[in-house]
Protein backbone atom coordinates (compact mmCIF):
# COMPACT_ATOMS: atom_id res chain seq x y z
CA UNK A 1 0.00 0.00 0.00
CA UNK A 2 1.45 3.38 -0.95
CA UNK A 3 0.82 6.70 0.79
CA UNK A 4 -2.05 7.75 -1.50
CA UNK A 5 -3.92 4.50 -0.94
CA UNK A 6 -3.32 4.69 2.80
CA UNK A 7 -4.64 8.27 2.95
CA UNK A 8 -7.78 7.08 1.17
CA UNK A 9 -8.40 4.46 3.87
CA UNK A 10 -7.36 6.59 6.88
CA UNK A 11 -10.77 8.16 7.67
CA UNK A 12 -12.39 4.71 7.91
CA UNK A 13 -9.35 3.42 9.81
CA UNK A 14 -9.66 6.27 12.32
CA UNK A 15 -13.37 5.60 12.73
CA UNK A 16 -12.68 1.91 13.35
CA UNK A 17 -14.55 0.62 10.30
CA UNK A 18 -11.81 -0.03 7.74
CA UNK A 19 -12.10 -3.57 6.35
CA UNK A 20 -9.71 -5.95 8.12
CA UNK A 21 -7.11 -6.31 5.38
CA UNK A 22 -7.11 -2.55 4.72
CA UNK A 23 -6.69 -1.83 8.44
CA UNK A 24 -3.79 -4.28 8.67
CA UNK A 25 -2.12 -2.75 5.63
CA UNK A 26 -2.51 0.74 7.14
CA UNK A 27 -1.02 -0.42 10.45
CA UNK A 28 1.92 -1.89 8.61
CA UNK A 29 2.44 1.25 6.52
CA UNK A 30 2.28 3.73 9.40
CA UNK A 31 4.96 1.78 11.24
CA UNK A 32 7.44 3.02 8.66
CA UNK A 33 5.88 6.22 7.27
CA UNK A 34 6.02 9.17 9.66
CA UNK A 35 3.80 11.45 7.54
CA UNK A 36 0.96 8.95 7.26
CA UNK A 37 1.40 8.03 10.93
CA UNK A 38 0.88 11.67 11.93
CA UNK A 39 -2.23 11.89 9.76
CA UNK A 40 -3.55 8.66 11.27
CA UNK A 41 -2.95 9.87 14.82
CA UNK A 42 -4.64 13.22 14.09
CA UNK A 43 -7.70 11.59 12.56
CA UNK A 44 -7.90 9.00 15.33
CA UNK A 45 -7.79 11.76 17.89
CA UNK A 46 -10.62 13.52 16.08
CA UNK A 47 -12.64 10.28 15.93
CA UNK A 48 -12.15 9.59 19.63
CA UNK A 49 -13.87 12.90 20.34
CA UNK A 50 -17.14 11.22 19.34
CA UNK A 51 -16.60 8.63 22.02
CA UNK A 52 -17.11 11.33 24.62
CA UNK A 53 -20.29 12.54 22.92
CA UNK A 54 -22.37 9.70 24.30
CA UNK A 55 -24.89 10.82 26.86
CA UNK A 56 -24.82 9.43 30.34
CA UNK A 57 -22.20 9.33 32.98
CA UNK A 58 -22.58 5.69 33.68
CA UNK A 59 -20.83 4.47 36.77
CA UNK A 60 -19.61 0.88 36.45
CA UNK A 61 -20.60 -1.47 39.28
CA UNK A 62 -18.19 -1.29 42.22
CA UNK A 63 -17.13 -4.89 41.80
CA UNK A 64 -15.89 -4.27 38.26
CA UNK A 65 -12.71 -2.51 39.38
CA UNK A 66 -11.46 -5.56 41.26
CA UNK A 67 -12.49 -7.81 38.37
CA UNK A 68 -10.43 -5.69 35.98
CA UNK A 69 -7.42 -5.56 38.32
CA UNK A 70 -7.54 -9.36 38.73
CA UNK A 71 -7.88 -9.91 34.99
CA UNK A 72 -4.89 -7.70 34.16
CA UNK A 73 -2.74 -9.19 36.91
CA UNK A 74 -3.70 -12.64 35.75
CA UNK A 75 -2.29 -12.04 32.26
CA UNK A 76 0.61 -9.93 33.58
CA UNK A 77 1.83 -12.53 36.03
CA UNK A 78 4.85 -14.19 34.39
CA UNK A 79 4.71 -17.20 36.67
CA UNK A 80 1.31 -18.22 35.38
CA UNK A 81 2.68 -20.40 32.62
CA UNK A 82 6.32 -20.82 33.61
CA UNK A 83 6.76 -24.14 31.84
CA UNK A 84 4.95 -22.92 28.77
CA UNK A 85 7.01 -19.74 28.51
CA UNK A 86 10.24 -21.64 29.03
CA UNK A 87 9.29 -24.24 26.50
CA UNK A 88 8.21 -21.63 23.97
CA UNK A 89 11.47 -19.75 24.42
CA UNK A 90 13.29 -23.00 23.86
CA UNK A 91 11.34 -23.67 20.70
CA UNK A 92 11.98 -20.15 19.45
CA UNK A 93 15.73 -20.37 20.03
CA UNK A 94 16.07 -23.76 18.41
CA UNK A 95 13.89 -22.78 15.50
CA UNK A 96 15.95 -19.63 15.02
CA UNK A 97 19.15 -21.70 15.09
CA UNK A 98 17.83 -24.06 12.43
CA UNK A 99 16.66 -21.15 10.32
CA UNK A 100 19.95 -19.32 10.59
CA UNK A 101 21.67 -22.49 9.49
CA UNK A 102 19.33 -22.88 6.55
CA UNK A 103 19.67 -19.26 5.47
CA UNK A 104 23.40 -19.56 5.86
CA UNK A 105 23.35 -21.89 2.90
CA UNK A 106 21.76 -19.15 0.87
CA UNK A 107 24.09 -16.48 2.15
CA UNK A 108 27.04 -18.21 0.50
CA UNK A 109 25.51 -17.07 -2.75
CA UNK A 110 24.37 -13.63 -1.61
CA UNK A 111 25.85 -10.94 -3.80
CA UNK A 112 26.60 -13.38 -6.59
CA UNK A 113 23.41 -13.19 -8.56
CA UNK A 114 24.50 -15.27 -11.49
CA UNK A 115 25.65 -18.15 -9.38
CA UNK A 116 22.64 -17.83 -7.14
CA UNK A 117 20.37 -18.24 -10.12
CA UNK A 118 22.24 -21.32 -11.27
CA UNK A 119 22.17 -22.83 -7.81
CA UNK A 120 18.71 -21.63 -6.82
CA UNK A 121 17.05 -24.98 -7.04
CA UNK A 122 19.77 -26.73 -5.07
CA UNK A 123 19.75 -24.01 -2.44
CA UNK A 124 16.00 -24.15 -2.05
CA UNK A 125 16.15 -27.89 -1.63
CA UNK A 126 18.86 -27.58 1.00
CA UNK A 127 16.91 -24.92 2.84
CA UNK A 128 13.76 -26.97 2.72
CA UNK A 129 15.68 -29.91 4.12
CA UNK A 130 16.93 -27.78 7.01
CA UNK A 131 13.48 -26.41 7.64
CA UNK A 132 11.92 -29.84 7.79
CA UNK A 133 14.27 -30.59 10.68
CA UNK A 134 12.05 -28.28 12.66
CA UNK A 135 9.63 -31.12 13.07
CA UNK A 136 12.17 -32.94 15.19
CA UNK A 137 13.05 -29.78 17.08
CA UNK A 138 9.47 -29.15 18.01
CA UNK A 139 8.87 -32.80 18.78
CA UNK A 140 11.70 -32.74 21.30
CA UNK A 141 10.87 -29.53 23.12
CA UNK A 142 7.29 -28.77 22.19
CA UNK A 143 4.30 -29.39 24.33
CA UNK A 144 0.65 -30.11 23.97
CA UNK A 145 -1.23 -28.29 21.25
CA UNK A 146 1.87 -26.72 19.74
CA UNK A 147 1.78 -26.31 16.01
CA UNK A 148 4.67 -25.09 13.90
CA UNK A 149 4.52 -23.92 10.32
CA UNK A 150 7.63 -23.04 8.39
CA UNK A 151 8.78 -22.21 4.92
CA UNK A 152 11.47 -20.74 2.75
CA UNK A 153 11.24 -17.13 1.59
CA UNK A 154 12.53 -16.48 -1.89
CA UNK A 155 13.46 -13.26 -3.65
CA UNK A 156 11.24 -12.10 -6.51
CA UNK A 157 14.30 -10.58 -8.14
CA UNK A 158 17.89 -9.98 -7.14
CA UNK A 159 19.75 -11.48 -4.21
CA UNK A 160 18.22 -12.37 -0.91
CA UNK A 161 16.87 -15.36 0.90
CA UNK A 162 15.07 -16.15 4.09
CA UNK A 163 12.93 -18.45 6.16
CA UNK A 164 9.95 -17.96 8.42
CA UNK A 165 8.27 -19.92 11.16
CA UNK A 166 5.04 -19.46 13.07
CA UNK A 167 4.51 -21.17 16.42
CA UNK A 168 0.86 -21.55 17.34
CA UNK A 169 -0.29 -22.53 20.80
CA UNK A 170 -3.68 -22.45 22.42
CA UNK A 171 -2.33 -21.38 25.78
CA UNK A 172 -0.47 -18.23 24.78
CA UNK A 173 0.07 -15.70 22.05
CA UNK A 174 1.32 -16.93 18.71
CA UNK A 175 4.92 -16.26 17.70
CA UNK A 176 6.58 -15.62 14.40
CA UNK A 177 10.29 -15.81 13.61
CA UNK A 178 11.80 -14.49 10.40
CA UNK A 179 15.40 -14.87 9.27
CA UNK A 180 16.64 -12.99 6.21
CA UNK A 181 19.98 -12.65 4.49
CA UNK A 182 21.56 -11.02 1.46
CA UNK A 183 19.34 -7.93 1.60
CA UNK A 184 22.06 -5.32 2.15
CA UNK A 185 21.05 -3.27 -0.89
CA UNK A 186 17.39 -2.94 0.14
CA UNK A 187 15.84 0.22 1.55
CA UNK A 188 15.14 -0.13 5.25
CA UNK A 189 13.01 -0.73 7.19
CA UNK A 190 11.70 -4.00 5.86
CA UNK A 191 8.07 -4.69 6.69
CA UNK A 192 7.00 -8.26 7.41
CA UNK A 193 3.38 -9.28 6.92
CA UNK A 194 1.50 -12.55 6.79
CA UNK A 195 -1.82 -13.23 5.11
CA UNK A 196 -4.39 -16.00 5.02
CA UNK A 197 -5.78 -17.71 1.95
CA UNK A 198 -8.56 -15.11 1.72
CA UNK A 199 -5.99 -12.33 1.48
CA UNK A 200 -6.50 -10.92 4.98
CA UNK A 201 -3.14 -9.60 6.10
CA UNK A 202 -1.55 -9.02 9.50
CA UNK A 203 1.32 -6.59 9.86
CA UNK A 204 3.83 -8.57 11.88
CA UNK A 205 6.62 -6.05 12.37
CA UNK A 206 9.54 -4.22 10.87
CA UNK A 207 13.24 -4.98 10.48
CA UNK A 208 15.09 -1.71 11.00
CA UNK A 209 18.70 -2.93 10.88
CA UNK A 210 20.67 -5.58 9.02
CA UNK A 211 24.10 -7.02 9.65
CA UNK A 212 26.95 -6.62 7.16
CA UNK A 213 25.71 -9.61 5.16
CA UNK A 214 22.28 -7.99 4.91
CA UNK A 215 20.89 -10.44 7.41
CA UNK A 216 18.68 -10.32 10.46
CA UNK A 217 16.77 -12.62 12.78
CA UNK A 218 13.62 -11.27 14.36
CA UNK A 219 10.94 -12.82 16.56
CA UNK A 220 7.56 -11.33 17.38
CA UNK A 221 4.79 -12.31 19.76
CA UNK A 222 1.48 -11.39 18.19
CA UNK A 223 -1.83 -10.34 19.67
CA UNK A 224 -3.74 -11.74 16.69
CA UNK A 225 -4.09 -15.45 16.13
CA UNK A 226 -1.97 -16.67 13.23
CA UNK A 227 -4.13 -19.71 12.60
CA UNK A 228 -4.76 -19.92 8.87
CA UNK A 229 -2.11 -17.32 8.04
CA UNK A 230 0.52 -18.86 5.78
CA UNK A 231 1.67 -16.41 3.10
CA UNK A 232 4.64 -14.34 4.26
CA UNK A 233 5.74 -11.18 2.50
CA UNK A 234 8.75 -8.97 3.22
CA UNK A 235 8.62 -5.52 1.62
CA UNK A 236 11.25 -2.81 1.56
CA UNK A 237 10.59 0.83 2.52
CA UNK A 238 9.66 1.61 -1.09
CA UNK A 239 6.86 -0.92 -0.91
CA UNK A 240 8.57 -3.41 -3.22
CA UNK A 241 8.18 -7.06 -2.38
CA UNK A 242 11.61 -8.38 -1.43
CA UNK A 243 10.88 -11.90 -0.24
CA UNK A 244 7.83 -14.07 -0.32
CA UNK A 245 6.99 -17.59 0.76
CA UNK A 246 4.25 -19.91 1.96
CA UNK A 247 4.42 -21.73 5.28
CA UNK A 248 3.49 -25.35 5.71
CA UNK A 249 2.72 -27.32 8.85
CA UNK A 250 5.78 -29.21 10.05
CA UNK A 251 4.44 -31.01 13.07
CA UNK A 252 1.29 -30.78 15.06
CA UNK A 253 2.22 -31.85 18.57
CA UNK A 254 -0.85 -33.31 20.21
CA UNK A 255 0.41 -35.40 23.07
CA UNK A 256 -1.67 -38.52 23.55
CA UNK A 257 -3.67 -38.78 26.72
CA UNK A 258 -1.90 -40.76 29.43
Amino acid at each position, binding site marked *: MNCATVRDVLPEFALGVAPGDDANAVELHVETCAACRKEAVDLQRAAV*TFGYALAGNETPPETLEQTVVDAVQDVARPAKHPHLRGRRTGIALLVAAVLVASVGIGSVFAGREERLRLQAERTALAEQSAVTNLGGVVQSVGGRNTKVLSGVLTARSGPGTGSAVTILTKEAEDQMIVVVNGLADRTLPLAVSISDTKGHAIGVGAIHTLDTAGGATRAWELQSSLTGFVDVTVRDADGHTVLRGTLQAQTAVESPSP
Partner: protein
Amino acid sequence: MEGLLAGDDAAIRALYARFSRPVYTMGLRLLGSREAAEELTQDVFVTAWRKAARFDPHRGRLSTWLMTIAHNQAIDRLRRETGVTRPKLVLVDEMPESPQSVDEDLLLERDAALRAIASLSDAERRLVLRTYFRGMTAREISEDDGIPLGTVKTRLRSALIKVRLANQQKELS
Protein backbone atom coordinates in the same frame (compact mmCIF):
# COMPACT_ATOMS: atom_id res chain seq x y z
CA MET B 1 2.49 2.50 31.65
CA GLU B 2 5.46 0.73 33.19
CA GLY B 3 3.31 0.07 36.23
CA LEU B 4 0.58 -1.35 34.05
CA LEU B 5 3.06 -3.58 32.24
CA ALA B 6 4.29 -4.93 35.55
CA GLY B 7 0.73 -5.61 36.65
CA ASP B 8 1.12 -3.10 39.46
CA ASP B 9 -2.08 -2.85 41.46
CA ALA B 10 -1.96 0.94 41.92
CA ALA B 11 -1.16 1.59 38.24
CA ILE B 12 -4.08 -0.51 37.04
CA ARG B 13 -6.43 1.19 39.51
CA ALA B 14 -5.21 4.66 38.44
CA LEU B 15 -5.86 3.86 34.79
CA TYR B 16 -9.21 2.37 35.70
CA ALA B 17 -10.19 5.43 37.74
CA ARG B 18 -9.46 7.70 34.80
CA PHE B 19 -11.01 5.75 31.96
CA SER B 20 -13.52 3.23 33.28
CA ARG B 21 -16.49 5.60 33.03
CA PRO B 22 -16.10 6.63 29.38
CA VAL B 23 -15.22 3.05 28.40
CA TYR B 24 -18.15 1.59 30.32
CA THR B 25 -20.50 4.26 28.93
CA MET B 26 -19.36 3.46 25.40
CA GLY B 27 -20.02 -0.22 26.02
CA LEU B 28 -23.44 0.46 27.47
CA ARG B 29 -24.54 2.83 24.73
CA LEU B 30 -23.16 0.86 21.80
CA LEU B 31 -23.77 -2.69 22.97
CA GLY B 32 -26.93 -2.12 24.95
CA SER B 33 -26.52 -4.11 28.16
CA ARG B 34 -24.65 -3.79 31.44
CA GLU B 35 -23.19 -7.29 31.02
CA ALA B 36 -21.74 -6.40 27.61
CA ALA B 37 -20.41 -3.09 28.96
CA GLU B 38 -18.68 -4.88 31.85
CA GLU B 39 -17.15 -7.44 29.50
CA LEU B 40 -15.97 -4.67 27.18
CA THR B 41 -14.40 -2.73 30.07
CA GLN B 42 -12.54 -5.80 31.27
CA ASP B 43 -11.37 -6.68 27.74
CA VAL B 44 -10.19 -3.13 27.09
CA PHE B 45 -7.94 -3.01 30.15
CA VAL B 46 -6.51 -6.47 29.46
CA THR B 47 -5.83 -5.44 25.85
CA ALA B 48 -4.22 -2.24 27.13
CA TRP B 49 -1.85 -4.36 29.18
CA ARG B 50 -1.06 -6.57 26.17
CA LYS B 51 -0.35 -3.53 23.98
CA ALA B 52 1.21 -1.30 26.64
CA ALA B 53 4.76 -1.96 25.46
CA ARG B 54 3.83 -0.56 22.05
CA PHE B 55 2.27 2.64 23.39
CA ASP B 56 4.43 5.60 22.46
CA PRO B 57 3.41 8.88 24.17
CA HIS B 58 5.24 10.79 21.44
CA ARG B 59 2.89 9.37 18.86
CA GLY B 60 -0.39 10.10 20.60
CA ARG B 61 -2.23 10.70 23.83
CA LEU B 62 -3.06 7.97 26.30
CA SER B 63 -6.77 8.86 26.15
CA THR B 64 -6.81 8.54 22.35
CA TRP B 65 -5.00 5.22 22.52
CA LEU B 66 -7.25 3.70 25.16
CA MET B 67 -10.52 5.01 23.75
CA THR B 68 -9.49 3.76 20.30
CA ILE B 69 -8.97 0.29 21.79
CA ALA B 70 -12.40 0.54 23.46
CA HIS B 71 -14.13 1.73 20.32
CA ASN B 72 -12.50 -0.87 18.05
CA GLN B 73 -13.46 -3.67 20.41
CA ALA B 74 -17.04 -2.41 20.69
CA ILE B 75 -17.34 -2.10 16.89
CA ASP B 76 -15.83 -5.57 16.38
CA ARG B 77 -18.47 -6.97 18.68
CA LEU B 78 -21.24 -4.95 17.03
CA ARG B 79 -20.27 -6.27 13.63
CA ARG B 80 -19.96 -9.87 14.88
CA GLU B 81 -23.33 -9.85 16.57
CA THR B 82 -25.51 -8.83 13.66
CA GLY B 83 -29.24 -8.87 14.21
CA VAL B 84 -29.01 -7.96 17.89
CA THR B 85 -31.27 -5.04 18.77
CA ARG B 86 -29.24 -2.01 19.76
CA PRO B 87 -30.38 0.90 21.90
CA LYS B 88 -31.15 4.28 20.36
CA LEU B 89 -28.08 6.46 20.63
CA VAL B 90 -28.44 9.61 22.67
CA LEU B 91 -25.68 12.19 22.48
CA VAL B 92 -24.72 14.75 25.09
CA ASP B 93 -26.18 17.67 23.16
CA GLU B 94 -29.53 15.92 23.10
CA MET B 95 -29.70 15.19 26.82
CA PRO B 96 -28.25 17.83 29.17
CA GLU B 97 -26.65 16.39 32.25
CA SER B 98 -26.01 17.70 35.68
CA PRO B 99 -22.38 18.91 35.75
CA GLN B 100 -22.08 17.81 39.37
CA SER B 101 -22.40 14.19 38.31
CA VAL B 102 -19.45 14.32 35.92
CA ASP B 103 -15.76 14.62 36.83
CA GLU B 104 -13.77 17.55 35.48
CA ASP B 105 -11.73 15.67 32.87
CA LEU B 106 -14.85 14.10 31.46
CA LEU B 107 -16.55 17.50 31.34
CA LEU B 108 -13.66 18.89 29.29
CA GLU B 109 -13.83 15.96 26.89
CA ARG B 110 -17.58 16.37 26.59
CA ASP B 111 -17.15 20.07 25.93
CA ALA B 112 -14.82 19.14 23.05
CA ALA B 113 -17.34 16.61 21.80
CA LEU B 114 -20.13 19.20 21.80
CA ARG B 115 -18.00 21.64 19.84
CA ALA B 116 -17.08 18.89 17.42
CA ILE B 117 -20.67 17.85 16.83
CA ALA B 118 -21.73 21.49 16.39
CA SER B 119 -19.11 21.97 13.70
CA LEU B 120 -20.66 19.27 11.49
CA SER B 121 -23.45 19.61 8.97
CA ASP B 122 -26.51 17.38 9.44
CA ALA B 123 -25.33 15.10 6.64
CA GLU B 124 -21.86 14.76 8.17
CA ARG B 125 -23.33 14.15 11.57
CA ARG B 126 -25.57 11.35 10.31
CA LEU B 127 -22.62 9.86 8.47
CA VAL B 128 -20.42 9.87 11.56
CA LEU B 129 -23.20 8.35 13.67
CA ARG B 130 -23.48 5.43 11.28
CA THR B 131 -19.76 4.78 11.08
CA TYR B 132 -18.44 5.51 14.56
CA PHE B 133 -21.46 4.35 16.53
CA ARG B 134 -22.94 1.66 14.28
CA GLY B 135 -19.79 0.32 12.65
CA MET B 136 -20.95 0.78 9.07
CA THR B 137 -18.21 0.90 6.47
CA ALA B 138 -18.04 3.54 3.74
CA ARG B 139 -18.98 0.89 1.19
CA GLU B 140 -22.06 -0.18 3.17
CA ILE B 141 -23.23 3.42 3.45
CA SER B 142 -22.54 3.98 -0.23
CA GLU B 143 -24.69 0.98 -1.15
CA ASP B 144 -27.46 1.85 1.33
CA ASP B 145 -27.73 5.46 0.23
CA GLY B 146 -26.97 4.93 -3.43
CA ILE B 147 -24.17 7.49 -3.48
CA PRO B 148 -20.65 6.97 -4.82
CA LEU B 149 -18.13 5.39 -2.47
CA GLY B 150 -15.71 8.24 -3.13
CA THR B 151 -18.32 10.76 -1.96
CA VAL B 152 -18.83 8.90 1.32
CA LYS B 153 -15.09 8.76 1.92
CA THR B 154 -14.68 12.45 1.12
CA ARG B 155 -17.46 13.38 3.54
CA LEU B 156 -15.97 11.22 6.27
CA ARG B 157 -12.59 12.86 5.80
CA SER B 158 -14.20 16.30 5.76
CA ALA B 159 -16.08 15.55 9.01
CA LEU B 160 -12.94 14.36 10.76
CA ILE B 161 -10.94 17.37 9.60
CA LYS B 162 -13.65 19.70 10.95
CA VAL B 163 -13.50 17.93 14.29
CA ARG B 164 -9.73 18.12 14.29
CA LEU B 165 -9.90 21.86 13.63
CA ALA B 166 -12.48 22.32 16.39
CA ASN B 167 -10.18 20.45 18.77
CA GLN B 168 -7.19 22.57 17.75
CA GLN B 169 -9.13 25.81 18.24
CA LYS B 170 -10.17 24.67 21.69
CA GLU B 171 -6.55 23.94 22.59
CA LEU B 172 -5.41 27.35 21.31
CA SER B 173 -8.09 29.15 23.30
